[in-house]
């Protein structure tokens, strides 16, 4: 009942379409700036934020570097606490496990807490194919699901929708799947939230099986942690009889105390709050309280591939706060759909190729979906150096084409540039050629830059990409190196 990212075009094509949607751009600009400012305010309140980031990065990095040990410990702790542990190599195996457990209880519906792992594996679609309805209960996920839409943000999957659009979706679709929206529904956020509360309550009260992810999994204690805001998570984690949690293997931390820096970093980075409204932790089954049958599905789905990458491994530290999306100038203008994945933005631009490789054109376009401005690294609470990983993944893309029989034009150009840049005499000749081009432009160019320099307006051919919206200054007649030679570095009266 929702759309699919399958078949998405490469990023530049998808981005062009998104950039043409002025409503989308307004929605995104507003939302990203609001959350950016909130984050900046609560982060500024923490005197030792940088030390906290270092501690958070350290805790996650240490867990990753000894992951097999921690996974075995986690499994043992969970089993001791009464949980059933499953392992899934990929999306298909994980979905099959969830479907099988659900069917074993004879039900045809589950309620879901917002979870990136289950979105990643396409669980809802897989369950639907098995005749099981998966009800998303996070408000934004509900908006996406009811709108047959795709998520466009890690934290706020419906960030691309404004209140008027949400009202329309609720009025049109809620009645089809349960309690309808009230006919006098307005577009006030509080009224819309109340409609979601009423719509979902009947589903919470009758649900037998819930599906969640986890923000963290503590190896030594077998504790899973879900961080949320609305209380839909608590509903799912508490009321049903059976709880199935799909947890990426990179969610493990070693000890209970390791949660400290992470629980301080996540809410401030994510929703811009000192603490999110609700955090639930549970270790297996608690007799007489909450689900009495607890399943944990430990999911690989490309994570071991990413783990093997010495530069990219750090991406597995990600705690899905989405701060990098909110500050990204590309994300802000293009939105999440253009990335073609449930993981959009800067983290998606590295995580998708790391998890799945760069053999398809769409994934291979993602590492280039960045100006490398570095704003993402600056805000990342676990200090993932996203720009460095982007550059490294670009190298992976280039390397994957080194055996091509017909090299791409870009590869030819780069080889030519490398040839010219390997010897200053070659470069000097290239500059003389460009100086001649400049002379032509000065004669025929129709534009003059403020300050008097000649420039090219719209040009055809390979220059069109630049000159479509940007004038191009004409190359000067004399390069710097020629000037230096002619004037002895300006000492010969040529300082001008």
């Amino acid at each position: 009942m929702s759309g699919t990212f399958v078949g998405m075009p490469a990023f530049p094509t998808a981005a062009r379409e998104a950039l043409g949607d002025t409503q989308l751009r307004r929605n995104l600009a507003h939302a990203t700036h609001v959350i950016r400012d909130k984050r900046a305010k609560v982060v500024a309140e923490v005197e030792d934020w940088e030390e906290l980031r270092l501690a958070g990065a350290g805790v996650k990095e240490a867990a990753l570097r000894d992951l097999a040990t921690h996974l075995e410990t986690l499994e043992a702790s969970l089993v001791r606490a009464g949980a059933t542990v499953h392992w899934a190599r990929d999306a298909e195996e994980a979905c099959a496990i969830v479907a099988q457990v659900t069917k074993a209880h004879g039900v045809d519906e589950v309620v879901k807490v917002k979870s990136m792992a289950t979105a990643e594996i396409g669980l809802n679609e897989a369950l639907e194919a098995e005749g099981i309805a998966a009800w998303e209960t996070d408000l934004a996920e509900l908006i996406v699901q009811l709108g047959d839409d795709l998520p466009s943000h890690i934290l706020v999957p419906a960030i691309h929708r404004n209140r008027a659009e949400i009202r329309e979706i609720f009025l049109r679709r809620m009645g089809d799947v349960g309690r309808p929206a009230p006919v006098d529904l307005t577009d006030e956020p509080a009224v819309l939230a109340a409609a979601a509360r009423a719509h979902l309550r009947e589903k919470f009260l009758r649900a037998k099986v819930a599906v969640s992810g986890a923000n963290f999994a503590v190896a030594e204690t077998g504790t899973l942690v879900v961080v949320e805001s609305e209380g839909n998570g608590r509903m799912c984690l508490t009321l049903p009889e059976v709880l199935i949690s799909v947890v990426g293997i990179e969610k493990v931390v070693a000890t209970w105390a390791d949660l400290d820096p992470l629980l301080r970093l996540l809410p401030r980075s994510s929703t811009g709050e000192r603490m999110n409204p609700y955090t639930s932790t549970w270790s297996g089954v608690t007799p007489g309280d909450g689900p009495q049958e607890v399943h944990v599905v430990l999911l690989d789905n490309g994570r071991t591939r990413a783990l093997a990458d010495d530069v990219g491994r750090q991406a597995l530290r990600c705690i899905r706060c989405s701060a990098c999306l909110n500050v990204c100038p590309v994300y802000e203008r293009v939105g999440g759909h253009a990335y073609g994945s449930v993981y959009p933005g800067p983290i998606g631009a590295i995580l998708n190729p790391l998890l799945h490789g760069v053999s398809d054109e769409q994934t291979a376009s993602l590492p280039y979906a960045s100006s490398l401005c570095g704003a993402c690294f600056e805000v990342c609470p676990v200090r993932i150096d996203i720009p460095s990983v982007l550059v490294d993944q670009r190298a992976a893309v280039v390397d994957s084409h080194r055996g091509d029989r017909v090299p791409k034009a870009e590869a030819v150009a780069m080889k030519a540039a490398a040839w010219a840049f390997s010897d200053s005499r070659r470069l000097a000749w290239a500059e003389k050629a460009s100086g001649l081009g400049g002379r032509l432009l000065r004669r025929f160019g129709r534009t003059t830059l403020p300050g008097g320099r000649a420039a090219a307006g719209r040009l055809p051919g390979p220059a069109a990409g630049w000159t479509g919206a940007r004038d191009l200054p004409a190359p000067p007649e004399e390069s710097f190196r020629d000037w230096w030679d002619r004037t002895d570095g300006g000492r010969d009266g040529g300082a001008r």
Partner: protein
Amino acid sequence: MRIALQITCVNDAMFPDTGKAVVRLLRRLGVEVDFPREQTCCGQPMVNTGYLDEAVPVVRRFVDAFAGYDAIVTPSGSCAGSARHQHSIVAERSGDPALAAAVAETGPRTYELSEFLVDVLGVTDVGAYFPHRTTYHPTCHSLRMLGVGDRPTRLLEAVRGIELVDLPHATECCGFGGTFALKNADASIAMGADKARHVRDTGAEVLVAGDNSCLMHVGGMLSRQRAGVRVMHLAEVLASTEEDEG
């Protein structure tokens, strides 16, 4: 102290006036720079596009050209960032320990112009005169890769006659991003359009930055929009004197 000017390929071919301004400015401050003729490019265009093998001979050229200098000064935050933070990646790719050793020498000695002025020469008032309403865009690599902080604005504030106005959303990327400007031209232009709008909102006559590549992008947009705002490299403003303006 032997000091070399790394002009950068973009400035060499497209913006020689910036290089002349650096020479003039440093000479006024009593510093003579060498211009090693063997220099070409820092290799950043290749590295940032993923062509690491292609960057190896370029980085080799860089370290050969600048070997033995105590300081390498460059009028580009981006190229200084490349030397300081990316050359080691290229050296590792080459598998050549000699290249790795060489970039470990040149990298830390490479200074962006404002760093060189403030940290090495210890000056903020360079004796410049520039009586224009001016706004400053901190380029991403100088800001986040190098951490030049407020050095450029301290230098600009000390310029006589200048009317320095704050640029709204100054720290947001202009959208240039090297080959990003071509590979993702639509996103790049959307970012540049917003930057150009913020520049126009300041009412400044001149937009100043420490990287001509970013200025070529924003300036190209401002020019297309007939905004009447001139773009200038920081070095050119700092080199200006009463004579120039007279």
